[in-house]
Every structure is written in structure tokens, then in C-alpha cells.
């Protein structure tokens, strides 16, 4: 089968309906008329190059470059500059989107690491950005900077990183599927009586725990005080895969 071509849609009306339609068709690039030709040309060249490298499967993959690139999204410019200098000292190119909420707009680049503050313009808005970055760059490190490790912060870390990872979980192999005839041959052990709530937890919490443990090596969670110490070596050492 031949690899699929890069699909670019040009539409005259930049409305939600057209954008949704293009999204449903899974096009690679959506341009609105009047088309910005330089932008269209550069994006088309980029997508065709990715298509050639990946043999038709367009998927952002780490480039074969030894230069590492980091994305820093933080509302506080003092923190941004200290992070940026720490990265540069360790030989990593740091890119800071300005203003911060435009971070998703520059995801046509590949980032090896993304450092996102949980507070960009208001409390908690960085978590959703971190989740999306995690989806866009599945093999990159995503570090979230949070004010502390309280319950809500950990809950947010779990929701936004685990839920994005759930999309990528492969289905269970057929050998693990429910097979009643084999189960009936096993010796039945006496089970302690469980309450309704514990039965619910067993049924729903176990697959989640499996997901988390299977992907735990990819996840990184860094609280703000790690950076406040001002040790740039910590970022470099945490970066190695």
C-alpha cells in the first residue's frame, strides 16, 4: 500500500463548523483563505519531510539531532529566565513562548522536554496544557511546576497525565481475556466478605493502577522548590533517559 499523501485543506470560512469538519477528516493542516503562502509552503515542506522520514505515517518523532530542545511555559518571567539559563548551561536549547498561552502554537517543533507551570495566567490552567503537550510529544519528558505537593496538586497530576496516557494503552492480549471454562477448573479459595464500596474500588482501581505502573518511568513530577534551590545540575541530571 502506498503511503498516504499530506492533506492540506484550504477553506474560505474560518468557523467552528469547518474546523470541526476538517478535524473529522483527519487532515494534516488547515489553512483559511486568504492563505498565507509562506506559512503554507513551509508547513507543507515540513509535513512532506516528516512523511518521507516516517514512510507515510505522519507522527512527530525525535529528530536525529544531538541538540536537545526544551519548552518553558511559566507566567513568572524571573522563573523563566532562571530556567532558561539553567538549560543553556547544560547545553539544552530553551524556547519560551511569548505570551505563554501561545505554547501550543509552536508545537510544530519537537521538544525533548517541556517545563510547564501549573499556574500560567490563573491557578491550575497549566495542567491542561501539560496534558496536551504530553499527547503531542509522547516520548518527551513533561515536567509540571506546582506550588506544593498537596492533595489537589497530586490529583491534578494524576488526572492530566494518567488520562492522556490511557489513550495510548494497548489492548489486553487475548490470553488474558475472560475465559470461563479455565476459571471454573481453578480451585476456589474462600474469599473474605467485601463491602459494596471495596468491590467498586477493586473493579475500577486496579486497571488504573496497572496503567500508572506500566508508564511510571515516563512520568516526571517536579515541585517548585526543586527549582528554587537554584541547582542547574538537577535539571541536567533529571533530563537523561
Amino acid at each position, binding site marked *: 500500500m*502506498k503511503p498516504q*499523501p499530506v*492533506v492540506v485543506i484550504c477553506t474560505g470560512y474560518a468557523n467552528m463548523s469547518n474546523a470541526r*469538519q476538517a478535524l473529522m477528516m483527519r487532515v494534516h493542516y488547515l489553512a483559511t483563505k486568504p492563505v498565507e503562502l509562506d506559512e503554507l509552503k513551509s508547513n*507543507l515542506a515540513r509535513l512532506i519531510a516528516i512523511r518521507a522520514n516516517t514512510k507515510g505515517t505522519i507522527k512527530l518523532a525525535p529528530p536525529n539531532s544531538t541538540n536537545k530542545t526544551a519548552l518553558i511555559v511559566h507566567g513568572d518571567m524571573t522563573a523563566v529566565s532562571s530556567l532558561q539559563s539553567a538549560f543553556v548551561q547544560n547545553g539544552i536549547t530553551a524556547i519560551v513562548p511569548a505570551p505563554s498561552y501561545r505554547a501550543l502554537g509552536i508545537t510544530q517543533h519537537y521538544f525533548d522536554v517541556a517545563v510547564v507551570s501549573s499556574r500560567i495566567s490563573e491557578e491550575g490552567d497549566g495542567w491542561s496544557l501539560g496534558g496536551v503537550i504530553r499527547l503531542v510529544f509522547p516520548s518527551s519528558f513533561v515536567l509540571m511546576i506546582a506550588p506544593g505537593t498537596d492533595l489537589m496538586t497530586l490529583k491534578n497530576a494524576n488526572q492530566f497525565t494518567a488520562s492522556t496516557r490511557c489513550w495510548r494503552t494497548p489492548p489486553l492480549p487475548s490470553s488474558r481475556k475472560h475465559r470461563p471454562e479455565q476459571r471454573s477448573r481453578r480451585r476456589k479459595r474462600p474469599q473474605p466478605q467485601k463491602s459494596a464500596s471495596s468491590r467498586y474500588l477493586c473493579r475500577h482501581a486496579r486497571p488504573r493502577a496497572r496503567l500508572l505502573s506500566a508508564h511510571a518511568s515516563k512520568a516526571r513530577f517536579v515541585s517548585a522548590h526543586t527549582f528554587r534551590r537554584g541547582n542547574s545540575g538537577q535539571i541536567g541530571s533529571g533530563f537523561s533517559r
Partner: protein
Amino acid sequence: MARKKSLLIVDDEVNVTRTLQMVFEDEGYSVTPAYSCAEALKIMKNGHNFDGVITDLNMEGTTSALLSPAALSR
């Protein structure tokens, strides 16, 4: 010598198609224009393997049929 990248440009507005054709030919692409979905489908059925397809969303005919995985991977 490197192979020229091939593009299929589909738009029912002739001016738009010709302008895009000129622009991308200047960039070194080999451009095939089509002025309707039916024409584009016919070209794709003939076995052309394009590197890229630039198409209008709102045209006479069904753009979704043109962009279906079956049509694109022919």
C-alpha cells in the same frame, strides 16, 4: 537527481488553483491541478502517488470521499 515532490491541487475556483499551481511550481513541486472532486478522484484512481493534496473544503461533490483513507492510499 532528487525526485520532484508531487502535489495535487483541487479547487473549483480556477484562479485559486492556477495561482497555487504557479506558486508551488516555482518552489520546485510537480503540480497536478483538478477542478472538482470527481476529477481529482479520477486522477487518483489512475495510480498517481502524490506527496501532498491541497484541497478546498466546500466544493461541488464530496470532499470527504476524496479524502477518505481508501482514496488516499490507492
